[in-house]
């Protein structure tokens, strides 16, 4: 089964890059890599079902969820019509921070087709053992297992990913190759990741890969039989460097190693989870963050072009203010590169909110004022939140619209902006052709965007975007919101505010993907949410939805128990159950005894109230008769705005929250926006 994941197209000596989004449009939807193709256009152009007419609150919404065992930081992947277990399925792949890999039937809420865990005799890494330069380290909380987005070699039905485990010898990172039809390891898999290069950056003559301090943050990439993996740091905690490694996809032998700062330090390849981009020759482009630079061995704050397989430095661009960027923690490489479809240009953006348009045939090295590259401009407005950050994270998607070739930028503390590429001037027009009207809450990371469209047809282009609906996702797990916007006008089409539309906690590392009329979105609350046209069926998985609920005396006649089981957080301050009772409790009657395995609770922060009002301590009790309750879980130190509680499956008709500490603030009432039972 041959799929068009990456097919180099060389247009003579002009170095013209034909972005893989054009190739993808000729094949079945098959999302085998982050941002849909090696050019990282961020656009699925084969979407024939969803369009700007049917993505609205009447016809579109969440249709089911898929539970997983831990947080998901990586993007999801997808295969159409794959034979698994003797039957054809559209298959959705998810990886978790518990080092688990899931293959789900992408079209129905069911148990996984297969699921594998790769902790072995060890455990996943944990956030408390890294990031000592931040005290406490909160960029990630909990397990650190599979973090970077995997990649699939569709020609061999093989998925590649990197696990992180704590073992007797310390932290170990391994590259795995799995058969995506069975979940079984391919021959030669896994391999422990090791590397060393000559360098003086750590005081000796050799730099050795440190699996503890190196964060496998960017997405993996695959081309011409080779797997590419990158690393950065946890909160700039040294010693670390930017690393790129290449492995043969069949033998899993290491064929190339590049260290971005062998005679210095830092220069991480993180790109907010984006993937390296490929040009038509299979060369890679990666952006680096804060780090040393000398233009010979050290390439912090740069876009680096690396040779296929061997990872030699072919060319580079370094922002001429690299020293200032280093001082102010304004990583050039907070965003990943994307190839400008149909051209020889590559675009990347960083923490300054600037977009750099660079010629792939001559990256330009370092010239004062950056005058050697075709274009650099401020793509994120700094005036709406004038004293805050305006970073670009992830990567900027492209769409060849009926009106022209568009690039979409949703930086921090700003609106979504659409920029048009002028094919004559070969520059981006710096005045946006449209500006969205949705302004995300204060904080990081800006919109995580991608595009779906049916080729260039009008009325089919949709910008999908997620961000936090409250809080700052830099160092907090925040409730999230998904938006759909018209890619031609940036008008809002839909947002995830309807009943049972919530995807719970926002994942700052995971892009939504669109395939065959469905939107797949991973989150930090141990769920994959699947959105689509409601006419095709909506699974009634939340057993508590609109069921009878009772509770201790409400704060007011409007904040009654039924508000906690109406499926939504978005009905205002009265859309919650609130109780000032000294021993507040809330019970939902599921109607009949059901086997339940999960409870999701949306606390004050889930309703955009201050997070310090989240329920701290409570018990989950169950009963079959409403009189005799058994405690199945006791929570003593919750800080989350939305908490997911995995239970040993138990039969219950009644589910009760018994709250002993309703808030971090003495005297606060208990506030529950949603109590959902699965």
């Amino acid at each position, binding site marked *: 089964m041959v799929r068009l994941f990456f097919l180099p197209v060389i247009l003579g000596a002009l170095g013209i890059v034909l972005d893989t989004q054009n190739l993808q449009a000729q094949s079945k939807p098959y999302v085998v890599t982050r941002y849909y193709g090696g050019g990282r256009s961020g656009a699925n152009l084969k979407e024939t079902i969803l369009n700007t007419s049917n993505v609205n609150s009447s016809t579109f919404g969440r249709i089911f969820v898929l539970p997983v065992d831990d947080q998901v930081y990586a993007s999801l992947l997808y295969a159409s019509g794959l034979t698994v277990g003797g039957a054809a399925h559209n298959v959705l792949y998810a990886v978790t921070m518990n080092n688990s890999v899931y293959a789900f039937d992408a079209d129905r809420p069911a148990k996984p087709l297969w699921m594998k865990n790769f902790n072995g005799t060890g455990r996943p890494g944990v956030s408390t053992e890294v990031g000592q330069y931040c005290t406490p380290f909160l960029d990630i909380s909990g397990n650190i297992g599979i973090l970077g987005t995997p990649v699939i070699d569709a020609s061999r039905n093989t998925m590649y990913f990197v696990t992180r485990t704590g073992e007797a010898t310390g932290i170990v990172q391994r590259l795995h190759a799995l058969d995506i039809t069975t979940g079984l390891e391919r021959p030669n898999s896994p391999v422990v990741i090791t590397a060393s290069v000559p360098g003086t950056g750590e005081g000796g003559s050799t730099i050795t890969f440190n699996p503890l301090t190196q964060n496998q943050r960017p997405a993996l990439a695959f081309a011409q039989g080779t797997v590419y993996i990158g690393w950065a740091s946890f909160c700039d905690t040294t010693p670390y460097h930017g690393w790129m490694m290449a492995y043969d996809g069949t033998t899993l032998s290491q064929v190339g190693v590049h260290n971005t700062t062998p005679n210095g330090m830092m220069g991480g390849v993180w790109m907010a989870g984006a993937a390296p981009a490929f040009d038509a020759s299979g060369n890679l482009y990666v952006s680096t963050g804060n780090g040393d630079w000398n233009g010979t061995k050290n390439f912090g704050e740069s876009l680096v072009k690396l040779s296929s397989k061997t990872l030699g430095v072919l060319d580079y661009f370094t922002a*001429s*203010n690299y*020293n*200032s960027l280093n*001082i*102010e*923690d304004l990583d050039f490489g907070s965003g990943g590169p994307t190839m400008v479809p149909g051209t020889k240009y590559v675009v990347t953006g960083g923490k300054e909110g600037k977009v750099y348009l660079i010629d792939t045939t001559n990256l330009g090295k370092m010239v*004062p*004022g*950056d*005058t050697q590259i075709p274009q*650099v*401009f*401020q793509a994120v*407005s*700094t*005036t*709406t*939140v*004038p*004293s*805050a*950050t305006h970073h670009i994270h992830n990567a900027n998607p492209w769409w060849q619209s009926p009106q022209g070739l568009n690039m979409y930028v949703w930086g921090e*503390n700003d*609106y979504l902006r659409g920029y048009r590429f002028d094919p004559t001037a070969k520059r981006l027009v*710096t005045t946006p052709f449209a*500006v969205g*009207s*949705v*302004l995300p809450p*204060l*904080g*990081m990371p800006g919109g995580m965007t991608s595009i779906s469209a049916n080729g260039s047809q009008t009325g089919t282009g949709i910008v999908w975007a997620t961000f936090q*609906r409250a*809080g*700052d996702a*830099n*160092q*907090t797990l925040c409730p999230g*919101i998904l938006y759909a916007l018209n890619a031609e006008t940036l008008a*809002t089409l839909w*947002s995830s*505010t309807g009943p049972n539309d919530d995807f719970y906690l926002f994942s700052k590392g995971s892009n939504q993907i669109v395939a065959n009329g469905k939107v797949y979105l991973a989150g930090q609350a141990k769920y994959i949410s699947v959105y689509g046209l409601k006419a095709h069926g909506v699974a009634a998985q939340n057993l508590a939805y609109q069921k009878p609920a009772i509770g201790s005396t409400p704060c007011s006649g409007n904040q009654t128990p039924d508000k906690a089981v109406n499926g*939504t*957080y*978005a*009905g*205002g*301050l009265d*859309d919650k159950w609130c109780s000032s009772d000294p021993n507040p409790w809330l019970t939902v009657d599921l109607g009949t005894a059901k086997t339940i395995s999960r409870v999701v609770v949306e606390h004050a922060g889930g*309703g*955009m*109230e*201050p*997070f*310090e*009002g989240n329920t701290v301590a409570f018990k989950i009790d169950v009963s079959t008769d409403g009189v005799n309750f058994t405690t199945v879980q006791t929570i003593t130190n919750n800080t989350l705005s939305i908490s997911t509680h995995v239970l040993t499956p138990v039969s219950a008709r009644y589910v009760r929250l018994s709250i002993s500490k309703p808030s*971090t603030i003495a005297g606060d009432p208990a506030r529950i926006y949603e109590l959902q039972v699965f």
Partner: protein
Amino acid sequence: MGGKWVAIGMLAAALLPLSAQTPSFVAPADVAAPPAEAQEAQSGVFTQVLKAGLGTERPEGDDCLGVRFTSWTREGRLAATSGASAEPSPQCLGAAMPGIAIALKLMTPGERRRVWIPGGLSYKPEEAPQGPALTVDVELVSITKAPRRPLNLTTPPENARKLLSGVTIDWLKSSKGNVHPAMDSNVTVHFSGWTAAGKLFQTTVMDGQPATMPLGTTLPGWREAIPLLTPGDKVRVWIPAALAYGNKPPSKRIPAGNLVYEIELLRVD
């Protein structure tokens, strides 16, 4: 970027095309130390006017500016530059290097100065407390005025409407309409927000781009106040911390404590 650039700034930009087209990144001869004719502005920041500006309006408070600049270390190494682009670089005073903010407040549009900034006032202290001394050539191109800071941030007027929740609303402009938004409405607003201490933390006014959002996803205090408005109303709203971001928000980028917003409801869908 959009924006309501002060007209005189645009005029100044039009009169000074050469500075935009021929940037020099070579350090000036006096990069290492201010000459005798340079004047100390304050805190060891010295400036020297290279070209006089136009008009009398100077940046202040939370204004956002269009600037062109090039900075060097005292040793003459290029530190940063707005580059060769004809477009000025955006720079809000609240986010500027402390030393450059001191100098910019002295300038009028069209003016160009050389600024000698001592270590510690070059980069933001929280990012680089030991930041190196820098010498900066800066040209002020334009000023976008920040919304005027209310004088009564901590004391709403007696006749303002006080809600049971603790939110207080003072109508600055009343449309006397009768269409009120519901929680599932999309509301389009212009707004500006200040902390009780007077820091402008967010505004749609300078960019000229109103924001649209489902009312049910907004700040709790907004969900109290906005349903009382009709399109065309403009209000000043005092929101207690418990209905804003709290007293201990999860990030230093989110304002703590009581907040004051000015909100103009433009449309309800």
